[in-house]
Each structure stands twice: as structure tokens, then as C-alpha cells.
């Protein structure tokens, strides 16, 4: 199909249409430039383009001592949380498909509860509840990881459940018919196929997890955002430049992980090894394709 879906909305412009489009392009470009200039003026008025504010980003020791430790803390919180959340998701996702009601219902309640409440109140609860109830000192790192695991683990559980349920019934029936036990059927037949189908959804959820580590800023975890919004401005009084540079770092990392998700999706669509259709993440903000 040479035409993209969007270009169906309008005719290929003729000579008059092309002239009108050119005129509109110029008009909108001018409007955007004016808008950008107004923003620039506002920034310049407050001296935000002074070299002194941007110059720290050219110094190696600023990166080594202030920014990279923050990035390291962000990545280590994300990695720790992901390593716990993925098994959590598999355990609870399979538990929700259990034949035993006493496993299925509690697992469902846990998953639905932690998906419905905001991550931040879980982090606050971990911080204050840990010391009030168990007498433990909860570091901001563990509080952030706890919140990330409970929330993202619950979302991953939904992905796992969707992945396994999307397999044709015949797969389980055939596995049981050749004499496999339920555990074996899950382990040897269902899970390997389901994992292929849900890999892209899992990776997209890990991008969400990585973004959510920035909540650590609110509980004074020394992450990348903390470096940009507290440490650098305290040293160089350059809040806006620092936050912009941190945003660029976050975007680069997330786009990188996002590319992995796209690649996995293409790969799983190509392979015919799985009988499952690719799984959309739960609470997906895109409408399912109908055609």
C-alpha cells in the first residue's frame, strides 16, 4: 500500500492546492518561529542563555561527580525493580489463571488493588509504614523499588495473564491429551509461546518503570532528576538548563529501550513459532486495530 492511512484524509493537492499548502506551511512556520522567539525572549530576559549556566555541561568532572552518579542510581533502581517485578508478574499472572479459587481470588485482588492506586502513595507508605509497623529504617532506594515492584509487577501480571489466555485452547488440550501434567503443559507448551507474544508489551512496561524511577525525586532519592533539579542548580544556579539536559538523557534512554520493543514486536510478528497474537499492554491508550 503506497498511501499511508493518514494521507487518505485529503486528496493529492493540485496546482492550487500546492500553492495553498505552501502558503499555509509558510504561515505556520512563521507562527511557530514567532512562538519560539517569544519563548527565547523570555528565557534570555532571565539570562537563561548565559554561557555560565550551560558551561558546566562541558566539564568532565560535573558529569563524573554530579550527573553520572545520579544516572547510575536511576538505572540501578530501575534494574533492581525490573528484576523483582518480572518474576512477580509471572507468579501473579499465572496465579490468576489457577483452577483453585483460593489462589485465583487473592492474586486477583492484589493485582487489581496495586494497579488502581497511585505509585507515589505506595512509595510514601513504604517509607513511613516500614518504620512505623516493622521498626525498619526504609531507605529512599528501597521505598522507590518497593513501589515500582508492586505497581509494575501488577501490570506485568496482567500482561502475562493476557499472553497465556490469548493462546488457543487446543494448545492446553493437546498438551493434556499427550499426558503432560498441568505444570508441564504450562512450562513446556504455554509459557514459551506466550513469552514471545508478550515480550514487546513487557519491554514497553519496563520503559514506564524506568520513567517512574523519577518519582524518587519526591522522596529525596538521589536519582538523575535529583542531579538535574537539586544538585546542579545548587552549584551553578542553572535549574532550567540542567532540567533540559536531564530530559534529553531520559528521552535518549527511553527511545533506545522503545526501539528494542519495536524490534521485538517485528521479530515476534515474523516468527511463526507462537500460536498467540501479540499482546497489547493493559490500560493501553491506543484503540485496538479493527481492520
Amino acid at each position, binding site marked *: 500500500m503506497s498511501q499511508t*492511512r*493518514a*494521507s*487518505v*484524509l*485529503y*486528496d493529492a*493537492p493540485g496546482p492550487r492546492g500546492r500553492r495553498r*499548502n505552501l502558503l*499555509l*506551511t509558510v504561515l*505556520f*512556520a512563521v507562527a*511557530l518561529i514567532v512562538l519560539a522567539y517569544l519563548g527565547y525572549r*523570555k*528565557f534570555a530576559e*532571565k539570562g*537563561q542563555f548565559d554561557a555560565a549556566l550551560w558551561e558546566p555541561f562541558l566539564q568532565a568532572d560535573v558529569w563524573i561527580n554530579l550527573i553520572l552518579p545520579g544516572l547510575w542510581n536511576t538505572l540501578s533502581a530501575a534494574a533492581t525493580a525490573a528484576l523483582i517485578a518480572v518474576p512477580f508478574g509471572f507468579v501473579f499472572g499465572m496465579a490468576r489463571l489457577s483452577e483453585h479459587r483460593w489462589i485465583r481470588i487473592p492474586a486477583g485482588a492484589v493485582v487489581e*488493588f496495586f494497579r*488502581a*492506586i*497511585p*505509585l*507515589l*502513595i505506595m512509595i*510514601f*507508605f513504604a517509607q*513511613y*509504614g516500614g518504620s*512505623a*509497623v516493622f521498626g525498619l529504617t526504609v531507605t529512599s532506594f528501597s521505598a522507590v523499588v518497593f513501589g515500582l515492584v508492586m505497581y509494575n509487577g501488577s501490570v506485568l501480571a496482567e500482561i502475562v495473564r493476557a499472553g497465556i489466555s490469548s493462546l488457543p485452547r487446543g494448545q492446553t488440550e493437546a498438551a493434556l491429551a499427550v499426558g503432560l501434567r498441568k505444570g508441564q503443559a504450562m512450562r513446556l507448551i504455554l509459557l514459551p509461546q506466550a513469552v514471545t507474544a508478550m515480550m514487546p508489551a513487557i519491554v514497553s512496561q519496563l520503559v514506564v518503570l524506568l*520513567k*517512574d*524511577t*523519577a*518519582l524518587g*525525586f*519526591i522522596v529525596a532519592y538521589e536519582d538523575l*532528576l535529583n542531579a*538535574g*533539579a537539586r544538585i546542579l542548580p545548587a552549584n551553578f544556579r542553572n*535549574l*532550567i538548563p540542567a*532540567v533540559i539536559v*536531564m*530530559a534529553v538523557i*531520559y*528521552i535518549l534512554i*527511553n*527511545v533506545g529501550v*522503545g526501539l528494542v520493543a519495536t524490534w521485538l514486536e517485528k521479530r515476534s510478528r515474523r516468527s511463526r513459532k507462537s500460536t498467540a497474537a501479540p499482546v497489547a499492554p493493559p*490500560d*493501553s*491508550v*491506543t*484503540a*485496538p*486495530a*479493527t*481492520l
Partner: protein
Amino acid sequence: MSALIEELPVILGAFWLTVRLTLATAVAALVLGTVLAAMRVSPLGVLRNVAGAYVNALRNTPLTLVIVFCGLGLGLVLDVSFSESLSVNYLWLSIIGLSLYTAAFVCEAIRSGINTVPIGQAEAARALGLTFTQNLRHIVLPQAFRAVIAPLGSVLIALIKNTTIAAAIGVAEASLTMKSLFERHQEAVVPIFLGFALGFLVLTLPVGLLFGWLAKRLAVAR
């Protein structure tokens, strides 16, 4: 439990602020998101690219960073001011941050809805001689909106939960209030947490049910 009853007015006030934050942001994000979606499918390359870059940048930035930028960057450094009162000013700045962020997701939802409208619909509209704007306004968007009611419901639920991040710039909505109640009543951390969790369940679950029902009721029959 007694702490929860004693502080009930404070808790209700905090949730009322959460609701107001949500409503104000939802309206702003819906408008901005629709405009962005229209830009992303427009015949003009400039608009398509600007909207595409905006959506990709905002979707890959943590919301906490966006809100900190709006609160501290716009508020403190650039002196953007909406009100004499500091707390009201931060409230507005957090609404701006939440709206800018949520609009990117609204745009993605609506764009995916535009893709569910069969090609024949837009082709028939073109054959009748409708222009791009007429095509969007009368044919495509009405069908697209009905296809994305459920995804927009998910965006709204995510928004209700995301309003807690306004705590990063000191807006005393539910989560920040919960934190200060934890400090005031250290013996009652668990009941207070359960109370606030219940509050969020009361806000999010009906929204999910309502949008699920609406999506079924208004689904385009094909």
C-alpha cells in the same frame, strides 16, 4: 481508625483538590491532544513534524520532570505567575505540567482511533468533495472519538493517579496530605494508607466502569 475519622475533613479536602486538578487537566489535555492529533494527520509537513516531535518528547520524559520544570523552572526562574497566592500559583503550574504531559497520550489515543475508521469513509468524504478539515470534523473524528472512549478512559484513570505527582512542587493534593498525616499520626500509618487507597479506588473504579459502559453503548456499528 480514630485518626482517620478525626482528619476526615482534611482528607476530603485533599481529594477534592485531586478531583479539581483532574478535571481542569482533563479538559485542557483533551483540547490540546485533539489539536495535536489533527496536526499529526494534516497535509502540512511542518505541523506533522512539530506534533510528532512534541508527542515523542513528552511521552519519553518522566512526568515528575515535566512538573518540576513547570513549577520551579517556569514558576521560580521565569517568574510566570497566575496568582498572588503562592499555593494557587503552584496549582496552576502543576495543571500546565499535567496537561502538557497528558495531551501527548490523548493525541496518541485519538490518532489510533483515526486509524480504526475504515479507509472507505474518508475516501467517500473526499469523493463528495469535502476538504481535509471538513473530512476530519464531520466524518473521521466523530467515529474516531467513539472508537477511543475506552482508551481515553484509561488515560483519565492514569491522570487521576498522576495528579499525585503534583506533590513534587508542594501542591497539597491527596498524596502529600497523606504524607503529612503519616507524620502527624505515626501510630496510624496503616489505617491512613488504607483510607487514601480506598479514596483512589472510589475515584478510579467508577471511571473505568463508566467508560467501559460508554464505549459499548457508543460503539460504531460496523
